[in-house]
């Protein structure tokens, strides 16, 4: 069992491996293999220290959140109010951002590493119970994690008095029901509570104060937590020795699209560039058929697109942001010169329009409107007025300047994604991002697709 028909394989290279070290083994997901390869040693080390001490270790390592926002885990854990019990850890395994399939491999191939990470987080942040939310469609991941959890319970790594200590934590599994927006942490909490998965209103910006069942709650991504066992065994110093000061360690990147070797890679944070990733021998080895690279999405379907001009940017938020996009969920989608750009934009926008939870007007109505105009254009039934209309609808979702590959030229330093939005969460802006990028970067391809038509001006009266 070396490869999975359903999942592009993981490709190891000659690089430091923090979270993927066990992927080389066929039985990487078993407790036996896990224990044979240093499993649960991080937890053991943690339990030998005070929670504050462990928390400090994680803070010192600056483990950036891998779910999308890139917020340091150690800092997030410190946001919970003191003295409010119980408090929870919620693990975000709902991975469904287009192009992203790294958490799935972590759950399928090394479930014990995730479980150990959860336990370390609970210990360090003083969390009394853990809920592991796994995307509904990920049958293998669900099975592997469930089996691993049973093994871990039986072996005394989870439950009461873990490894003979006074530390006790239960882990509860929960399967999603197939809604993208439930990856958003507050929607995930709603879903976990048994409600319709719709994002909560902000503020509060973090569920740390008021989260699951109104209690302090830490939501962390699967990969974020999977870093912890290695970190506890090797220490923050070794962790920060990898990568850069602001982006230490490694991160998993899922590459899809027109490259020779799509797959998930563990790259070095902050230093590996997009060129390394797409053209490097140990990574994707170039564009398929040695075609021209036309554009790529650097951080999941929501991210504004980059062109070959941005290839030399490293995986470093402080550089990718001002360049007009984001690292997001760690997914790179590659389009070569044969790509039908309007159709590519439609594919992404259709996804977000469909996944809108329907809560707010701009996303519910605007997303679908964008999709319908785009599909008209793709079908050759659009007019030139439709192109401005796309931007007009976008303006109602995200007013003002929308980040794109050349927004640095507009003098917007460190543009956060998106600069402004009229919606409650990022799904609305995400529906617009592909449209905006495609239209800004490749307007001529749209113009070639539409017929010219003069709009009859409407004045004074409602037609």
């Amino acid at each position, binding site marked *: 069992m070396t490869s999975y028909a359903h999942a592009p394989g993981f490709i190891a290279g000659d690089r430091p491996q923090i979270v993927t070290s066990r992927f080389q083994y066929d039985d990487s997901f078993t407790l036996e293999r896990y224990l044979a390869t240093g499993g649960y040693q991080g937890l053991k080390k943690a339990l030998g220290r005070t929670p504050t001490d462990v928390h400090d270790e994680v803070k010192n390592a600056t483990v950036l959140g891998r779910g999308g926002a890139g917020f340091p885990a150690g800092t997030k854990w410190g946001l919970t109010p003191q003295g409010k019990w119980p408090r929870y850890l919620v693990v975000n395994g709902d991975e469904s951002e287009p192009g992203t399939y790294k958490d799935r491999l972590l759950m399928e191939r090394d479930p014990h590493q995730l479980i150990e990470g959860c336990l370390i987080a609970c210990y360090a942040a003083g969390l009394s119970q853990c809920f592991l939310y796994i995307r509904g469609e990920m049958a293998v991941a669900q099975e592997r994690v469930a089996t691993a959890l049973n093994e871990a319970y039986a072996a005394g790594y989870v439950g009461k008095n873990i490894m003979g200590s006074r530390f006790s934590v239960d882990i509860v599994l929960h399967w999603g029901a197939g809604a993208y*927006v439930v990856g958003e942490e507050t929607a995930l909490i709603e879903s976990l509570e048994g409600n319709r998965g719709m994002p909560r209103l902000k503020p509060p910006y973090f569920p740390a104060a008021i989260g699951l069942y109104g209690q302090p709650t830490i939501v962390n991504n699967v990969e974020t937590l999977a870093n912890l066992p290695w970190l506890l065994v090797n220490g923050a110093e070794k962790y920060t020795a990898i990568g850069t000061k602001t982006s230490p360690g490694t991160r998993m990147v899922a590459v899809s699209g027109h490259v020779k070797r799509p797959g998930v890679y563990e790259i070095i944070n902050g230093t590996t560039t997009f060129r390394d990733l797409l053209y490097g021998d140990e990574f994707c080895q170039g564009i398929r058929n040695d075609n021209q690279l036309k554009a790529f999405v650097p951080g999941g379907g929501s991210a504004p697109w980059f062109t070959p001009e941005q290839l030399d940017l490293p995986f470093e938020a402080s550089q990718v942001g001002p360049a007009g996009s984001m690292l997001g969920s760690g997914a790179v989608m590659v389009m070569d010169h044969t790509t039908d750009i309007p159709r590519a934009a439609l594919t992404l926008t259709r996804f977000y*329009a469909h996944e809108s939870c*329907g809560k707010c*007007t701009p996303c*519910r109505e605007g997303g679908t409107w964008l999709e319908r105009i785009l599909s*008209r254009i793709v079908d050759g039934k659009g007019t030139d007025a439709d192109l401005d209309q796309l931007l*007009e609808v976008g303006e109602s979702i995200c*007013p003002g300047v929308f980040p794109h590959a050349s927004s640095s030229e507009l003098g917007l330093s460190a543009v956060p994604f998106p600069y*402004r939005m009229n919606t409650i969460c990022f799904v609305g802006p995400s529906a617009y991002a592909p449209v905006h990028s495609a239209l800004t970067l490749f307007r001529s391809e749209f113009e070639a697709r539409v017929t010219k038509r003069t709009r009859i001006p409407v004045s004074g009266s409602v037609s």
Partner: protein
Amino acid sequence: MTSTETNVTSDENQPPVDPNAVTISINGRQVAARKGELIIAAADRSGDYIPRFCYHPRMSPVGMCRQCLVEVEGPRGPMMVVSCMTPVADGQIVRTDTPQVKRAHEGILELLLANHPLDCPVCDKGGECPLQDQAFSHGPGESRFVEEKRHYEKPIPISDIVLLDRERCILCDRCTRFADEVAGDALIHFTSRGNNTQVLTFPDEPFSSYFSGNTVQICPVGALTAKPYRFKARPWDLEKVESTCTTCSVGCRITVESSRDQLLRYQGVDSDPVNWSWLCDKGRFNFEAVASDARLEQPLIKRDGQFVEADWSTALRAAAALVSSALRDGGAGSVAILGGARGTNEDAYAWSRLARALGTSNVDAQLGDGLPSTVFAYPQATIDEAANASTVILLGPDLKEELPVLHLRLRDASEKRRSKIVEFGAKESGLTRYAWKHTGHEPGQQVAAVRSTLTETSVVSQLGKGSVVVVVGRGNLAESPEFTMSALAAVMELVPNAKVLPVLRRGNVRGALSAGMGSGSAAEILERAAAGKINCLVLVGADPLADFPDADLARRALTAVPNIVSLDTFMTTSSSQAQIVLPAAAFGEKDGTTTNLEGRVSQLSRKVTTRGTSRPDWMVAVELADLLDIDLGVGSVHDVFDQMVTTQSAFRPIDRSAIKASPDGVLLAHVGSAPIASPVPEVPERAGFSYRLVVSRKLYDAGQNVANSPSLASLAPGSAIYLHPLDLDRLGAPAGSNVKAIGARTSVVMRVEADASVHRGTAWVPWNQPGGKVGELIDASALVNDVRLENI
């Protein structure tokens, strides 16, 4: 709601006194606001209207429609925020008028209209539609949406009363939020996702909420419509006046709306001390009864057992003759007057004046289904005081069934954690799930229950935390009211600082009693009648055969009285026993004032002409008095009011200008000092195999208002006897089967059902249900009533 002056001019001499006061700038003008207030509310006061759909001041904000975007100055320049979610902060700079804001408002409106069907010409909301109005005031003026719009089957019924048109819905979450947050009946919800998101009920579970009509009122489009008003009028044809609902004694403020002299709609008015704009469906929709074909239009005189129509002067002369002959033959004591609780204060006062002039004290506005009026002698609480008390003690009826909007106010108090509810009841109520403590007890055991619960350590400490209000009413028609009064006395002894909110149910019962209609007791009057001591009984909107708990006594009394005069809007079972029936003006057809359960006197307004030749009750009293050579000294409803407020001590603080100046009403004066507790009656033992009877009301019953409102009539659940599931098992009868209920006097056959909210050892029967005969099992002179059940 308070609306204070908002444009604060900077006055150096005025030191800031209020720590919660903040000043913000809206479009360059300074606006005084309070910490925690939302920008949209502050802007409403400063006259800077911000368009909105989902925001409703009586519900928590959800920020869903995104229509209310404004710009707030932030560290990175102006930020677009939703003003219904963003609280004010001192020094905040808000702009609602920049090109960016205008663009955002137009953009959101364009999106909302994109899939909107624009049914305006045939839509009930057209003309008073927030979407239509704001599309006009803040919209883009043209639509660029050329795709096909969303289609759904339209409309679909979501309950017996309400229909939903999903094409018109703009998904503002007002109805769904109301159902969940205000009514506590989360029976409608969003389903599906993206562009197909829609409001729906759960499969096979209709939106059967007592409060469903509110969703129709607050829906900002014509997506929700209610059967009684659908397609009846265009909003611009409606004329409206403000009035007070008298269906129950909460006294919700409403607008009475009509077109072409037909009542078509009542809408809730936001009265801060009372109903917060909410109404119950019974109060909202029973205007149908006013237009019912069954209304009495002409006076009727019985000749040879048949009613024949007569003109008023003939009928009144005949009535006067009956009263005179009773006075002559049996003296003043042989005349009795029952009723007055359904009309205005003026109606009740005129009749009580007539009674006094005649010299009789056989007068009662209650029909043995309330409490002695000594309950008003305790220190009185208002609804607001109850809904803000740290502890609310419930002794009595199921408020959800009897006084629905009071139920909402107390539910809110509990949900928002202002109050803890301690409930005593012979059956669980609609508030039980919100109660901090529920002590169930058998009928008659409430004094013991009060004494043991209120002395528990945790309860004692809770009672010490702040104000305590006792909400007290008649929870069980099959037990003596003395138990409740003794329980109240026991509470007052244990919590001497508590205040009392009496919750007698009938619309103007408190006004009628305060106006003098309580000098006798219905039970005694009917006993006297049954003993042949009453020659003439006047029923002023009273139907003892339907409402007096002891059916046998009511029947014997009405059979024994030779002469009955009935003044009513409908032919009731009791009026059909009368010699003379006079048609009375109904709600909406007369002016006056009414008094709610707190003693709040407010205006009642006439909107349509009286039906047929019917007249208001007070006028009939005055005319009858005339014919009896009694001068009541009044010629108009205003005269009656003025005389009432000078002669009735409770009404003394009130005058016409005060009522006019305060649409929310003016409180009665408190008269009397706390009554001395009478000894607790000894509760008889219950035989092992019998059940102690609990009889209480459901919102929908066989009463005239419901029965004559087609939209409501079918909602009455019908008569049955309910047992705890374990008791039903013990009985061995399948749920839904008929059993024989054997009371002290007779037996009746009833359907039996299981209900876990009924306490073991008791049997609950809803009162006055279509086909119900539970009155046969009640002996009003007994302290409690027991039944045995037999399978048949």
